[in-house]
């Protein structure tokens, strides 16, 4: 009996969905275990986000941005420096930050009485989770409720085999030992453009090959166009509407072949490293789903209804379910899922989940794009404000980008906010709050904002919806 510990909730996966679910369960007084094997056999919580995703990429984006700024912009500010890259130190500071964050989760688990059960979890029939430890030993946990939070992994591409040396995925691209002279990124999505930016700033020639004829699908088309122009100006080369057909590696490097989607002659690019970043797929294999009658869909996603799966007492959150594969979406679902299990009114507003690209300039948005509103046939008004007219941006010599607010033509309710420019990742939250409260653009326009700040652009753009932008 001592071998089958019993819990109120067992969570499989210790990423942003899993660890937040575990903490919330602990807060609500549930007896909870979180099963996670750690990343790369390492003994760390936090899943992809903390270990090989959002966090390390932001560490490198921040450092590489300062490196490039030091080289290109400091002189203009009256600071003469000749920066020299110490990649080893840059990686070390990244590892140090990530280490501190993962330890932080361990601390939060202890604080909230969450048992971290090390190993791979799989459902073994109703109310049972079997944990296989690194040494192969098995333990069975009993649980009234089971939450699947196993996240996602990079999608593979036939003909392009990841070896994490010459052909890398996002994990490998965060740990290159040297700056490649030529880097080809497959996929012009968020991950590819962020990591492509890191290595371009550190010295690589970067070419991005994308199947679609636009970058960053899902982003408002006007923003995407502005964004692409900006990245191109920085030296990134785009090959759009191009289908990769194969990659061969040799001692000299990688030969990547692709052909136009619309038809035409194939091309070959020679490079040192290929980054495969065409998207991610849910991680739902070897989870024992069949033991409780759950069948993932063709693409591996688990169908849910308010986090409930088809099996009683089994829940799913985060990347394994439909919707954007974003840490904060998983976090929201985690809280709602556990609160529902605890008999409370868990709720996720899927209309207000922001997206951010942490490049330079950053792009951040929440709500509907103009294309979506047009497709819905919804009458809307738009207000725009460029950072060139914002005093703080001007003073800082960071005038790139603009803010665009979309609001219902009749009710003035904010339907979407689209921001491009430095630091907009920190600014979009204001519109998340506004939209959560179903604010009108006028509500933001009539709210005092501090001067001088970049946030004033948010207000001026809101004024623009009803045609009374004052500072442009």
């Amino acid at each position, binding site marked *: 009996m001592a071998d089958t510990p019993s819990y109120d909730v067992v969570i499989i996966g210790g990423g942003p969905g899993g660890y937040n679910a575990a903490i919330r369960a602990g807060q609500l007084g549930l007896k909870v275990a979180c099963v996670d094997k750690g990343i790369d056999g390492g003994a760390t919580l936090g899943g992809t986000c903390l270990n090989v995703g959002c966090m390390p990429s932001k560490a490198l984006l921040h450092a590489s941005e300062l490196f490039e700024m030091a080289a290109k912009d400091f002189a203009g500010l009256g600071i003469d420096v000749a920066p020299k890259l110490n990649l080893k130190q840059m990686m070390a500071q990244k590892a140090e930050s990530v280490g501190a964050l993962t330890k932080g989760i361990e601390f939060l688990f202890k604080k909230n009485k969450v048992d971290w059960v090390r190993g791979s979890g799989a459902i073994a029939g109703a109310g049972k989770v079997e944990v296989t430890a690194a040494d192969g030993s098995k333990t069975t946990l009993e649980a009234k409720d089971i939450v699947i939070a196993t996240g996602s992994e990079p999608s593979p591409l036939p003909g392009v085999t990841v070896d994490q040396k010459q052909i890398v995925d996002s994990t490998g691209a965060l740990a290159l030992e040297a700056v490649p002279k030529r880097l080809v990124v497959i996929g012009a999505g968020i991950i590819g453009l962020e990591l492509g930016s890191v290595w371009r700033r550190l010295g690589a020639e970067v070419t991005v090959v994308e199947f679609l004829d636009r970058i960053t699908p899902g982003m408002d088309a006007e923003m995407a166009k502005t964004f692409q122009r900006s990245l191109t100006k920085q030296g990134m080369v785009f090959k759009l509407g191009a289908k990769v057909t194969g990659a061969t590696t040799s001692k000299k490097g990688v030969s990547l072949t692709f052909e136009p989607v619309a038809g035409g002659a194939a091309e070959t690019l020679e490079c040192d490293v290929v980054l495969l970043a065409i998207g991610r797929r849910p991680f739902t294999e070897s989870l024992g789903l069949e033991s409780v009658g759950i069948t993932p869909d063709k693409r591996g996603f688990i169908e849910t209804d308010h986090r409930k799966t088809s099996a009683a007492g089994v829940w799913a959150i985060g990347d394994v379910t439909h919707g954007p594969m974003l840490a904060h979406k998983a976090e929201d679902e985690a809280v709602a899922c556990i609160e529902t299990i605890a008999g409370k009114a868990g709720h996720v507003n899927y209309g207000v989940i922001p997206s951010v690209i942490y490049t330079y300039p950053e792009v951040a948005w929440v709500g509907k794009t103009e294309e979506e509103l047009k497709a819905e046939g919804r009458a809307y008004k738009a207000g725009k404000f460029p950072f060139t007219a914002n005093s703080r941006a001007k003073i800082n010599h960071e005038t790139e980008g603009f803010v665009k607010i979309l609001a219902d033509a009749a*009710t003035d*309710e904010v339907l979407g906010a689209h921001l491009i420019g430095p630091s907009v990742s920190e600014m979009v939250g204001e519109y998340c709050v506004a939209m*959560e*409260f*179903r*604010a*009108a653009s*006028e*509500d933001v326009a*009539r709210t005092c904002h501090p001067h001088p700040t970049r946030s004033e652009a948010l207000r001026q753009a809101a004024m623009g919806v009803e045609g009374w932008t004052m500072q442009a």
Partner: protein
Amino acid sequence: MADIMTPALGESVTEATVAKWSKKAGDAVRKDEILVELETDKVSLEVASPSDGVLSEIAAEEGATVEPGAILGRVTEGAAAAAAPKANGGAKAEAPKAEAPKAEAKPEPKPEPAPAPAAKPAAEPVLAPSAQRVAAENKLDPASIAGTGKDGRVTKGDALAALEARAKAPAPAPTPSAPRAIHEREERVKMTRLRQTIARRLKEAQNAAAMLTTFNEVDMSGVMDLRNQYKDVFEKKHGVKLGFMSFFVKAVVHALKQVPEVNAEIDGTDLIYKNHYDISVAVGTERGLVTPVVRDSDLLTLAGIEKEIGALGRKARDGQLALEDLQGGTFTISNGGVYGSLMSTPILNAPQSGILGMHKIQERPMVVGGQIVVRPMMYLALSYDHRVVDGQGAVTFLVHVKEAIEDPQRLLLDV
């Protein structure tokens, strides 16, 4: 269990206001005991208990609007007062709820249920900044806007929708829709339905008719002498005092026969002449001015007229007037003199075309046969609808009235 129903309210009356419950829920009531008073546009009426028992439920609170057939409340037969659930016993202290009459029968209340918690007074509505602006600029009552935002907050869209709904609603009465703030030394009282009807109808008359007033004066000596001579024997014979009103009714009927357009009314592009003489007599009551009708005045004797006016006046003061007592007058006499008025311009009682204003009798120096003599004089005013009655007709009418009062023998001879 017996329902207390709203009775039929009379022709052309579609709704009534619950004026006053004389019993509260839980009180024992007897069959035919008056439980509740209703007010309509024209009359107030009382509704009695349908059976012995306990008033178990009040479905239409004071101030509620009800239609004929609507359930006002229920009486549980045979129950003892003490055992009855005090369904709404404590509700009196609260602001009267404008509760819609419940159309469908409710299940019988169980003996033990705790009273439903009184609805909490709604918390101050929370308006988004934009919604505040919309409400302030358009004088929308924030409490009247249904909020659809987070936790019931009022969004700009909600405020705009409320604004649109108001625009679509029929134009409100010419009173401002947003009640103005009450100052310390003011008091706000809801107009009774009767008062509202008076207000509306007076204004309608003013708006519809081309109304103007002609004046004359009458020497009351002749009527007063006649009255003094016969008042005792008149009262002894007829059991009613001989007043001036009966003379004026007779004089008016006499004049109406001479100038029939004053007894006519406009109907579209036609005139309807009335060959009957039903005189509305204005009577002041606590609730307001009512105008019961002395029917076929031309056929009544002076005594008959006095009796009829007396009876109608008592009914009016007691709130017992029936709808039919008030309908169908062809001309109105209003006596402001009883309150001391020396001169006034009465407003028509639509759709009638004339109204005679009587005033205070005052002794004044008059020149009679080259001599200044003291005479009891009264000013007369005739307001008339100039669309129907020409100036000549109006003046002639008033002169006929004057002559008949000054020389009552003319009435006898019909000249």
